[in-house]
């Protein structure tokens, strides 16, 4: 009977250890994911969103703004964010004199 109880206690202890490890792994994975997401959000390249948005705001062409949806760092977005094609409203540098259409 004692042997049976010892086996049972050993199994319960092993299960508790397994659960503790599972919990630790779950917490670590959650924390790592959140930290990674935060770090990525701050470090992802491309200020194009702001540039394109401000360009769209300054153009005010009356369109719905759906034609130039090139987010991220795609080539088109880079083009839009360059000063020659899209002088931003708040830059005030006076360099946008290349005659952007």
């Amino acid at each position: 009977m004692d042997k049976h109880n010892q086996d049972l206690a050993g199994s319960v202890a092993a299960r508790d250890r397994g659960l503790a490890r599972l919990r630790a792994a779950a917490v670590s994975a959650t924390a790592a994911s959140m930290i990674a997401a935060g770090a990525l959000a701050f470090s992802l390249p491309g200020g194009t969103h702001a540039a394109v948005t401000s360009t769209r705001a300054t153009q005010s062409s009356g369109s719905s703004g759906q034609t130039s949806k090139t987010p991220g760092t795609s080539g088109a977005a880079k083009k839009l964010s360059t000063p020659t094609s899209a002088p931003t409203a708040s830059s005030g540098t006076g360099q946008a004199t290349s005659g952007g259409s």
Partner: protein
Amino acid sequence: MLSPSTAFWYASRATGVVAIVLLTAVVVLGIVVSRQGRLPGLPRFAGLGLHRYLSLLAVGFVAVHVLTAIADSYVSISLAAAVIPFVSAYKPFWLGLGAVSIDLIAAIIVTSLLRHRIGRRSWRAVHWLAYLSWPVALAHGIGASTDLRGGPLLGLTITCALAVLGAAGWRLASAIRALPRARLVPGLMAAPDDLLRAGHR
């Protein structure tokens, strides 16, 4: 740069990248646990539990990825486009792949939650969709944004692809190795009958 007006956009991109990594971990863990039964340092139930937990965590990140993309005012992505493939006005093909992946993941999660009701056979059949869902999700990530196509995240993309390919290859190899043993099973199953008959004689 991250600012209040661009927060949703950056959050969507960042959570999308993390979701791909988590989905990769889920697929690899699922393969390892199903073939080997347990992970080093973890009992079998904990390996399965971790697989399930990471699945739900990945779904959470996918949900945030979708909701922030919808909430962002820069591109107009409707809620319907997030779940109905190829109806989005913005990059219909690549966002359509994302919708396909979400639908497949939803099917896998729902059938896993209802596993005891639908039976192991049906659950397993639907669970095989994970092998389709993961590459579709990766293709969506590569096609819809340039983040995973270059820079340091290209290395992450390649690592994820190699991890899943390696795990799938290992599974395939071990299944092929197990084939001759599977052929022996009918013979082994018949053996006790033969022994019984011999005993009766």
